[in-house]
Each structure stands twice: as C-alpha cells, then as structure tokens.
C-alpha cells in the first residue's frame, strides 16, 4: 500500500473566503454592543466557522490517509487497441469515511501528454476498505505509454480547500504496431519469387530439406516438378513442384524504408511510416505462419542498422514488434541503398522492400527485389467511428 507522495492544496476563491471572514468579523463587532444577544451571535458565528474548519481539516486528513493498493495495467498493447486501467485505493488511519473522492491518471507517450482526466469518482470509501476506479484507454500511437502519476481529490462539502493526493508512480505500457488485416494479394508477393527471380540458385543443395509441394509458378525449375502429384491432377496443364528449404538460412529479407521521402508533407510521411510498420509486422507474422525464416532489416538512425533473424517462433515475432514499436523515420537514402544491395547479394534470399516513396526508385528497379510502395499497402481496414 503506497501512501501519497505529496498533498497539493487548492484554496477556494479568495473573494469567497474574504467575504465569509468579513461577515464573521462584522457580526462579532455588532454583537459587542448587544450583550443580551450574545448566545445568538455565538451560535451564528461558531456554526459556520466549525463547519468550514472541520470539513477543511477532514479533507486534508482524508487525502493524507489514502493509499494505493494496486494498479492494473497491461505491459503491452497494440496501437488502435484499448485496455482497461483500474486503480484501487484504500483508506488508512482515518475515523471518517472518504466521501466523493475523485481520481484521475496522467497518460504520456512521447510528446503527447494527457493530464486532464476524466475523473472517476468513488462515492464512499470506508476505513480499511478498498474501492476501484476504472477507465478504458484507447491508444493510437506506437511507443512507450506511461500511465501515472495518479491523483485523488478530496473536497468535502463546505471545505475551503481542495486536497489532492498525488501518487508519483508510473507504469510503462509498450504500444506495439497496430493489428493489420492483410489482403490476399500478399500471396502474390511470393509468386515465383521464392524459387525464381529473387533466388539465384535453381536446384536444391545437400543441406536443404524437402518441405512440401506446391503449384508450379513461372520461373520454377522443371527439374523440381513432382511427377506423381502432377499426374494425379485432372488438368494436364497443372503441375506441382517440390520445395526445398535450408533450415539454417533465411528465406526472405524484408527491408523497411525509414528514410524520409523528398515529396509530400510531414504528416503524409508519418502516416505512411505507420502504415508500413503495421504492414511489415503483419507480413512477418504471415510468413512465420508458413514456416519461413525471415530476416528483417531497417535503419533506426545514423549508422544504426537493426537486423533481426526471425524464426517461425512467437518469441522472435514479439521481439520484432517490440523493436517496431519504437522505430522512427531515422534513415537516409544512401545507407538504405547499401542495405538493399547487401541483402540482394546475400545467398539465395528473396528481398521485399517496403518503401515510403510513392514510386519505385531507379536504383531499386535494377535490383531483383519486390518493392512495395505506399500504394501497394492498403489503408488500414479498421475504422474507428466515434459515437457522437
């Protein structure tokens, strides 16, 4: 149970306090000339004074006695997703219950800070009992979201001060890229590329293993045609080929463009980066589901190249998404060109380049890679329509 880090006091409007004090003073002066009315005057002065004093002191003491029992917040969430935040408060060492406690939390991610609520209320918090405030949070920006510090306000009716108990604790939530729904055109990305254009080697080597059969695509080596399966088909023009795979080697390289395009404005660039990041995450998951090993490459900053080897394992994909959660537009064109050439020269891997530029560059056209421009990456399929 964590006590408040500090208590912030906000006084009622000075004019109200001054008027109240002035009225008390005038009443006291007027009574001095009429001793017979002293009981009436004492009551008239004492009642409001005691009431205001008692509620003010009680507000401050109640705020001091508040304790945080627990905060429930997930460690990771996907952008565009929502989570439930709950704050459990208890009251310690206090004779009277806390009435009308209002709580709020601060949310900050990057340069975006939200510290205005909404306020959740706890109508009545009795001594040594706990009560929970619950919020729903929808987060749309990737990165690390900090939830906290938390504030609890106590202001009893009639109190001249508003006491705020501030609990300086923050919980980090990693906001992963948004969940992306891929269209079926992703299948076409690999059509013939795996064995043909993006792959220089045409026949399997000794270290490769037979992984299955699939339909023949233009560019496949005829020596790999699976005769038995092909003969079983009804269509005489339909063939199947055997697929081989070296477990120790990547099948695919995915290069994410993080260099700022020359055309367009800042908002458009950032929007396209968001789309590309979410798209890449979904693409890697699709390939992992097909038991393909993927090498992901992106430039994080100056001389900072992120290179991840992703086996079809959840742990690798989680690591990728954690990295993607923090990736920004920190690349440059020259480094990107070198990275692409390096990936193409790697032995046997097909290269998919997710570009931020609207058209494929000349240098990329010369390379045996698949370039996906923002036009290829569809808009996000889920639209949040806000309830007015």
């Amino acid at each position, binding site marked *: 149970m964590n006590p408040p880090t500090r208590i912030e006091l906000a006084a009622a*409007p000075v004019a109200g306090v001054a008027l109240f004090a002035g009225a008390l003073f005038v009443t006291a002066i007027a009574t001095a000339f009429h001793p017979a009315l002293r009981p009436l005057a004492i009551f008239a002065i004492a009642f409001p004074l005691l009431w205001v004093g008692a509620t003010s002191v009680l507000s401050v003491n109640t705020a001091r006695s508040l304790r945080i029992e627990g905060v429930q917040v997930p460690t990771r969430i996907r952008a565009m997703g929502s989570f439930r935040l709950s704050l459990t408060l208890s009251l310690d060492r206090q004779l009277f219950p806390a009435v009308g406690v209002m709580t709020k939390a601060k949310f900050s991610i990057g340069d975006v800070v939200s510290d205005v609520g909404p306020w959740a209320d706890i109508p009545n918090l009795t001594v040594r009992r706990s009560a929970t405030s619950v919020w729903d949070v929808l987060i749309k920006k990737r990165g690390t979201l900090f939830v906290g510090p938390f504030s609890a306000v106590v202001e009893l009716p009639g109190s001249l001060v508003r006491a705020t108990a501030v609990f300086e604790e923050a919980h980090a939530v990693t906001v992963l890229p948004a969940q992306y729904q891929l269209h079926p055109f992703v299948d076409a990305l690999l059509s013939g590329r795996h064995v043909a254009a993006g792959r220089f080697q045409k026949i399997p080597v000794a270290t490769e293993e037979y992984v299955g059969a699939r339909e023949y695509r233009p560019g496949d080596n005829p020596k790999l045609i699976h005769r038995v399966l092909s003969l079983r088909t009804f269509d005489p023009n339909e063939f199947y080929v055997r697929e081989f795979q070296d477990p120790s080697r990547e099948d695919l390289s995915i290069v994410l463009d993080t260099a700022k395009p020359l055309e367009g404005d800042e908002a458009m660039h950032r929007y396209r980066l968001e789309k590309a990041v979410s798209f890449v995450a979904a693409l890697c998951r699709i390939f992992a589901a097909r038991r393909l090993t993927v090498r992901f490459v992106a430039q994080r900053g100056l001389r900072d190249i992120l290179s991840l080897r992703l086996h079809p394992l959840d742990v690798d994909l989680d690591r990728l998404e954690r990295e993607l959660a923090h990736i920004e537009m920190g690349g440059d064109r020259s480094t990107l060109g070198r990275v692409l050439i390096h990936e193409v020269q790697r032995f046997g891997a097909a290269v998919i380049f997710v570009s931020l530029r609207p058209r494929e560059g000349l240098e990329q056209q010369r390379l045996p890679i698949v370039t996906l421009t923002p036009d290829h990456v569809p808009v996000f399929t889920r639209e949040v329509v806000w309830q007015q």
Partner: protein
Amino acid sequence: MIDWRRRADPAFYDKEPLVLQTQAQVPRYSEDEQAEARLRVLAADGMLHNVTTIFAVAAYLAVTSLGMLDPRTDWQTLGAFAVLAVAGPRALPWWPQEGARSTWRHALLGLAIVVVPAAWSRVDPMLFGVGFGVAVALLLTRGEIRLLLMAAAVAALLARALVIQPGVTLVLTLAFGFGVRMMLNVWRTQPQVAVPVAFAAVLLACTYSIALHATALSRHLALEIGALAIAYLGICTMAGRIRRAELLARPEGVLSLPQSVVPLLDRSHHHAVIVWLA
C-alpha cells in the same frame, strides 16, 4: 501487381489522399460545457430546491425574530426580508424555469411567511397589509422586473440602516456588493463558492437585525437559534447537493486531450490517447 490491385479495388487509389484530409470532430468537454452540464443537474435536483426554500424561510424567521417585529414601525424590514426570502432563491442560476402560474405560489408564500409567524403573537391589520403588499409585488413581477424588486428591497433595508448606523451600513453594503459580484464571476466554474456566500448572507442579515432590532430579537432567543440552526443545516445540505452535482456532471464520455496530430491509421480523429470512464 498494381493492375491486380486496381482491378480488385478500383477506389483504392482515390482513398489515401483523403485519409489525411478527413477527420471527424470528437466532442471536447470544455469548462463551459461542464458548467452547463452541472447546471442541468442542479436544475433537476428537487431536493436542492426544497432545501433552498427551507433555508430562506428559516433565515427569514431568524432575522425577523419569528414575527416579533412591529409591522407598524418595521414594515420595511419585514417586507424587504420577505421579498428577498421568496425571490432570492428563485433568482439563483440553477433554479428551474417556472411558468407564469408560479407567481401565484410565490405570492402565497410571501403572504404566509409574513403573516403566519406573527399571527400567534398579534393580529394587526398592518401585518396583513405588509403581507398583501409583498404578495402583490411578487405576483406582478417576473424575470428582470423581479430583480429590480429585489434591488428595491435591498435599497429599502439600506436606506433605513443608513439613517441609524451609517458606518456599519456602508461596510455591509460594500460586503454585499462584493459578494454578489464575486458569486456572479465564479459560480459557473466553482459552484461551491455558493456555500461561503450563503453563510455570509445569513451572517450579514443577522448583523442587520442585531444592530437595528436588538430588542425584538432578545425575546425568543432559543427559537431564533433554532431557526438559525435550520438555516445553517440547509446551507450544509445545499453544499452536499452542489458537490453531488459536481460529481454527476463531470465528463462521463470521452476526454481526449491534447489534440495533437499524430500518425493515424484511421480517419476518425487525430487523438493519440483517448480515455473514458468504464
């Protein structure tokens, strides 16, 4: 590939430029809107209105010595306090809108609070005269004219006091004007300010009576203290109801601030963090 995309979704290429241009307006819960919501809660609170009426009547009884003031000599005080006790609460910003027929109720209430408390001690035609005068004044005035009537009541009280005790009256006048002005400035954002102002109003009214009608007040001190206690409890209850309205009228829907342009994957709005009560 591009051809395939074009065939599958011909409208696709027209979508993206619109994504950044289209944004829905998310309702923002500004201070003004919150004040309006709070006002609606207060206007719908029947208990608050009843308590306010009880407070005003009890305060009237306390400062007029439960009808012991002589209607022949103190008719201005009786009439002015009666007008303020009936019209004052109804001039509060959160008092619900009333129809034309409500002036009848106000007139009857004005007549009752003048006549009934005094009737047990004396039956004086002048008392009924004051009562009917108050009733007619309340019956014939509404809206801004009612405010003028209240101002006239205050002026009547001050005029009499100025003759007798100019110094105290000047201080009371300044304090009263200061209080009204302060209340008008901050009541929308801080409705709890009504509590010290109400306490101050009762105290100033008591001071007025103590200064000008000490003899009448000294006859039934216990009853006056009882009436004053009821008035104070009414203020405490009003404070509780105002606090309740503050809790009820807080932003219950979305509250997403600050509004910052962040890269978005939908076209609904540009808020990075949106929080609402579960």
